Structure formats: structure tokens, C-alpha cells
């Protein structure tokens, strides 16, 4: 009488903090993100940190969705196995792959200005709502086309935090700038488009951009003098 709807686990990838699987659960395609323990940490501290990070990741995702920013639906958080069960975004690719495919098909990166502006708007609305992503790269934003235009869906909030400090916003942009310029050749102009739109997208935009130029001078870490 029972029917197994749990298919074999499909391993997708592994980062420094977690493994990601794709599964079909009772007819829904889902992603499982499993944080693993760090053997070099004291077990009590380790499980405490893992729980805290699971929570902060889920908090940021839910904050996005309550602010109208599309993110994966969270189905379950299992602290016993340090897993987050969430929606698999079907028919989407990362912006990184999107840009690479576009270039491979003979496109010029500067034709992607509207994508840059849409990214700027997205990051502006994250920051406007007090969400710092913490690891913005073109691999951590999915693009999914819809009837008119496309949706951008930020993923992997594993390093995210909540707050509105221009400093954190500036660092968030700086991380993306470094990632973009090193991943995508000649993406300077694309990034400028992004920043232009970002500045317009929320009140604190300009202040965050000023911080960005400060961060560029000194790097991601604050100088600890005095």
C-alpha cells in the first residue's frame, strides 16, 4: 500500500560548509542543503554554530519572500541532521552560465546592460529591506524567464546577515564586483550599469556606493587602527 516517492539522492555539489542534493519528494522537486560538521571544532560549539547558521540562512530567505523578492520556498528545517529542504527552481540557470552561454553564442557582454540593471535593482531591494547577502556572485543568482522578461532569484544565503549598515552593503557590492570582474572578462561596464541602477533603487544607495569606494581602497576587511 505504500508508494515510495523518494527517489535516489542526486548529489549536486559540495562547498566549504555544505553539500547540496536534488531529490523528488512526494512529487515535488526539491533541494536539500546539508551542513556538515567541522571535525576541528569542539562538538558542542560546532553543533551550536551549525544551528545558528541554518537559522540565519532561513531567516534571510523568508525575509526576502515576505518583501516580495522571489527566493526558494522553505519546506523544512531539520536540526537533527542539519538539513534545509527547499524548492528546486526548475528551468533556471545561474547568471554566470547565462552570461557564458550568451558570449559563446557570439554576444557582446555590453549588450547585457539590462541584465546588469536588473541585478542592481535586485541587490538594491535586498539592501533596502535590510538583507546583506554576504556572498554575492553571478553563480548565486538564478535567472528564470517568464512571460515578460525574467525573474532573478538570489540563492545561497549561507553567509547572509540582517542589517542596514552602509559598510556591510558596500562590502556586499565589493564582493560581487571582485567576483564578476574575475569571472567575466570585460564586465566593467556591466557592473557600472548595475551600480547605476542600484543607486537609484533605494535611499541609502549613494551612501553604500561611497562605502564601496572606501572598501575598494582597503579591501574587504576593515582596517584595525587606533
Amino acid at each position: 500500500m505504500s508508494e515510495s516517492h523518494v527517489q535516489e539522492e542526486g548529489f549536486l555539489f559540495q562547498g566549504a560548509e555544505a553539500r547540496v542534493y536534488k531529490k523528488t519528494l512526494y512529487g515535488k522537486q526539491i533541494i536539500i542543503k546539508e551542513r556538515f560538521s567541522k571535525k576541528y571544532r569542539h562538538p558542542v560549539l560546532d553543533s551550536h554554530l551549525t544551528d545558528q547558521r541554518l537559522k540565519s540562512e532561513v531567516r534571510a530567505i523568508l525575509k526576502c519572500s515576505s518583501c516580495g523578492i522571489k527566493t526558494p520556498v522553505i519546506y523544512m528545517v531539520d536540526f537533527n541532521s542539519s538539513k534545509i529542504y527547499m524548492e528546486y527552481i526548475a528551468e533556471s540557470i545561474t547568471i554566470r552560465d547565462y552570461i557564458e552561454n550568451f558570449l559563446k553564442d557570439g554576444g557582446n557582454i555590453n549588450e547585457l546592460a539590462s541584465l546588469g540593471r536588473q541585478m542592481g535593482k535586485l541587490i538594491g531591494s535586498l539592501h533596502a529591506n535590510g538583507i546583506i547577502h554576504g556572498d554575492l556572485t553571478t553563480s548565486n543568482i538564478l535567472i528564470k524567464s517568464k512571460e515578460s522578461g525574467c525573474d532573478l532569484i538570489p540563492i545561497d544565503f549561507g553567509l547572509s546577515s540582517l542589517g542596514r549598515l552602509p559598510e556591510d552593503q558596500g562590502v556586499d557590492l565589493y564582493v560581487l564586483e571582485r567576483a564578476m570582474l574575475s569571472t567575466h572578462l570585460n564586465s566593467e561596464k556591466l557592473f557600472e550599469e548595475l551600480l547605476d541602477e542600484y543607486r537609484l533603487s533605494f535611499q541609502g544607495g549613494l551612501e553604500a556606493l561611497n562605502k564601496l569606494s572606501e572598501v575598494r581602497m582597503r579591501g574587504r576587511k576593515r582596517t584595525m587602527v587606533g
Partner: protein
Amino acid sequence: MEIFAQNSFINDSYIISLVLFNNVSNSSEIRNMAIKREINATLLKPQAIVDSFQVLLAANKALSNYLGKTMYTKSLHSEIIFSLSASRSITESFKNFGVENDANSILIVEISEKDKSSIDEICSRVRGDPVKVDSIGTFTNIPVIKQLYKIDESELAHSNLNDVVYSRMAAKEFVNY
């Protein structure tokens, strides 16, 4: 009678069985049997349920807490009710999702080890009409769901009700609504 049975994704050797009854005439009797643990199952109010996925998520979460010895309530079956609720109050969870004495419809949920299910026996005690679990949506009371999960109309502009319900359940331990 249709039994909707699925394997748990937390532990494959457990099975989750759902049976839905309408026009129930002995709810208080069934409810008392559950309270006295004469029947080992959870009795849910179908009006507070959007689909079977919601119940399966709660059941799996309950099983994980049971096996991991991190339950908030005293039994596996009461843990299902707690997991369903967006509230961290056990009393409130039971009030919102448990059946009342005069309930007309009941969704029965049983978690058991494989081949140890007693769902047939449990169901034989119910005087009512078994209906397909798929038809749970016809029992759903959307205003009640919105109130129980504190769902704002503005949230539904860009996400669907069921998805908001799932994430409310998932994060209830550490997000306040």
C-alpha cells in the same frame, strides 16, 4: 476506504498513513480514545489543512524530532500537531489543529514502522464516510488558514498560499510572526 500511505523521507522504515473521514458521528468517542492512547494516531481538523504535503512535512519533522530525541511534546503523534502549527504554544497548536468533540470531519494521521500499521483497526472505530485524501482541499477553510498562519494578503500577491504555509511551519521554532 482509501489509505494514503507514504514512506517517511527521514527514515525509510517508517510509514505515514492518512485517512480522511466526513460525516463523522462519534468524534468525541474517537477523540477520547486518542487522548487515552487507545488509538495511536493524530486526529486533525481538515479545515486547517491545505494539502497532504503540509501534513507529510509535519509528520516527517515530528519523526525527526522523535528519532533525534528532540521532541517538544510527549509523543510522536502530538508532535505532528505541534509541527503543523506556526505557534510555539502546544496548547494553542492543539486548539488550532486538533479535532473538537463535535467535529464533522477528521483527518487521521498515523506514523508507524513498516508492517506495524494499525490504521485499519483505527479506522474501523470511526463512524463516518471515508473520502479520498486528495479531496482535502474541499475542506480547507482559507480564512482560517490565513489567520492560523498569520498570512497577510500582500504576501499572496507574489507567492501562493500553500508555499507560505510550508515555510511558516518550517521556521516556527526561530522566526516570530
